[in-house]
């Protein structure tokens, strides 16, 4: 089962690596931006369409 911490979009908190942010690049019809949403490192990412395996971690 893949978890958020295995994803390249996951950025762990230094003070608590069990938590972090899912950071994504978005381009909507008007603007481009980066968004972040807090997630748990161990969260099940099996159904996440944004999941991208991070091979460097």
């Amino acid at each position, binding site marked *: 089962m893949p978890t958020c911490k295995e994803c390249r979009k996951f950025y762990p908190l230094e003070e608590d690596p069990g938590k972090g942010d899912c950071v994504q690049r978005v381009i909507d019809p008007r603007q481009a*931006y980066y968004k972040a949403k*807090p997630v748990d490192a161990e969260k099940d990412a099996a159904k996440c369409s944004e999941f991208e395996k991070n091979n460097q971690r």
Partner: protein
Amino acid sequence: MGETAETLKEFEQKQEWWWAAEKKRSRRLDYLRKAMWKKGAIGGLYPAGLYIDLERPVMQTEKAKELEYSPDPYVIKFAKILAHVLDNKTIFITDHSQLVGYLGSLPNMITWDPTLAAILNHEVVNDPTSIPEPMDESLKIISEVTGYWAGKSDLDKILPHMDLDDAMKVLSGAVGWGVPLSRGGYSGKDYEYIMTGVRAFEDIIAELDRKIDEADEKAHEPGATREICDLYDKMNMWEAMKITLEAGIRYGKRYARLAKIIAENFEADNDRRQELLQIAEVCERVPAKPPRTLQESLQYDLFIQLFSRNEAIEGAWPARPDYYHGPYYERDVNIEKTLTKEDALDLAGEFLIRAAEVSQYKVKWAREGLQGIEGTWVWTLGGVKKDGSDACNGMTIALLQAARLVRVANPTFAFRWHPKVKDNVMREIFECIRQGLGYPSIRNDPILIANAMNWHGHPIEEARTWVHQACMSPSPSTKHGFQPMRMANATANCAKIIEYVFTSGYDHIVNMQIGAETPDAAEFTDYQQVFDAWVTQMKTIFSILVRPVNRARMLAPKMTPRPFLSAVSERSVESGLDVCDPSINRGNAWITAFTWVENADSLAAVKKLVFDEKKYTMAELKDALANNWEGREEMRLDFVRNVPKWGNDDDYVDGIMLDCLHAAAKFSRELKCPSGNNWPILPENVSGNIHYANIVGALPNGRRLGDALYDGGISPGPGLDKKGPTAVLKSCSKIDHITDGRAFLLNQRLSPTQLAGEKGYQLWKSYMKTWADLGLDHVQFNCVSDETLRSAQRDPEKYQEVIVRVAGYSAHFVDISRKTQDNIIQRTVQGLG
């Protein structure tokens, strides 16, 4: 460069200022302005591409469920829910931006707060246009959320404690609008406490800790007193305030972290990387610590505004950005020279855009009443300092210039004019008006300071800090003077006063007895009886609207508290009482008087044609009105054409206007708010003149059911002011703008051709001198030609950026209803000189 300069000149010559602005603004402002999702509803519906944000309602609901059986008192639960949202909501940073923060999870999301009112939640369920896909999934979430909050929302809790007779009359929508909630209206702020650079959130938290420790110690000393009983509530309130401030600091740090992640992992451009690291530094600093730079000051302000709007629906944005950000501008641009004027202009322009993006889902009647905009964000510029000296500064100029570059319709500005304002500032104001922004509106500072002292007893130093609490009403930004919540339902549809004179208070539109059961108008034998009935109806309607607000203000501290707004308010930090508690509030209430002028014109028509000339009987008139003038067109035209109309310097009708105002002013001193202060009236309209067109029946001024009402305040009826601009000003000057009411809105249309060049400026300045000499408190201008407006009606795609002044606010012309568009075109274009 040569080609661009020529094109710019062509646009300016053609007075196509919106294209000229595109050419003039920086690359950053151009990107950010075009990146902006306009949030104002069009025809009561949100534009395509906008969606209701379901993230926050889900978070609020999950946290509320989790806390359901916790021993925390309500105010702490509420603060924890707010903190949960700030800690977990999606945040984003737009390319090129330097200021960050938005209410929703994504730029095109409209936030919905399900904790406020079931009537709002029902509208969400039934909204056919803004529910995000996949629809089935969203509807399931909406259903669960609305189901949970049914019976638990603020309005659900408050209503059983109201007088139901008054409540039903208010909610009928016939005589007022809005609901009496402390989390739904116009929130003033204690800027003198929070925006002067003396303190920020960490300082307040330290103060709250001291307060809690002292109270805790006192509460456990031997003894038992009433004071000790009160301390338990106060400690809870202080704790709740602290929870919200700590969450605010964490929220800032979340942005700092995201900016750093982007800079270190994504951004290839070195300049942008530096900007992102700068954003990170700013958000590490504020709101925790006081700002040191203009960017930090603007970011700090933006965070405060967003936190407050996470706590409540705020339909206005009381602010004085030049006054509070000006010292940072001065230091960065002129003293330390760490910013160029162009850099500062970019920040000022982006600050306007960030505010323009703010959106909160509102009920349909509110969206219809505020066509094309999200709320009345009227920012106050200029004015005097507490010592009476001129408060204008470099930031005043920067904001006026930035407004012309980004051309947002919301926020708009209102400028506090006084005799010491320098010519260079007046020229910047004139440029905004000439370039068709419709703002700033001009306010007469000496008059309004005297007015604030007269009506609400604000000491002069506090009165001098005033900001617009909504479109028009001044409110100090001081410890005891600022009003934390203006509940919008004290907004009177005043045309109903004269309508009810002829129906003995029965409302045939909503089929309810709303007004007083005054005697049958058909039996009146002299004008005095008509006027006496008018006074009775006026008193009845005002009372119906004011009583629920007073009641809600009394209930608010316990039932609908505002821990965040309290935390940034000195009086609450000091006392441990909710910011809405009347005992720590001097009071600054007012009744917004929509559709006011119809009363004077109607009474004049009755007096002249029925009692002076005896052309018609009261019975005939009553019958004609009951039948919407049908079959009586000749008679109707008599009432339109052959009667003096307000705005022509005619003492016959102007005297009646004064009689009405004096009666209202007298009653305003009998109506008291829970702080014991007065309820003066404030004639203005927003776009209520269109909203109420199908709610107000036929009137003796010749108006039929469905016709647009006059556009506002003390503006003459469209096309009825036939004697030129000076006659309008003279009629308006017969009103005492200090003692007859809280403020009086005057719309004027000027010709863009006439205002061209230096001659145009001198003409306008001369007009403004007359306005000031005559002692009016307000004037605002539309300066877009009929030709442009009609072209925009024919070809809206080409004229997306044309802005007009609707009433107390501006809007993009294409975003307002056809009826409102026509109403603006019908206004008389005044020739100056």
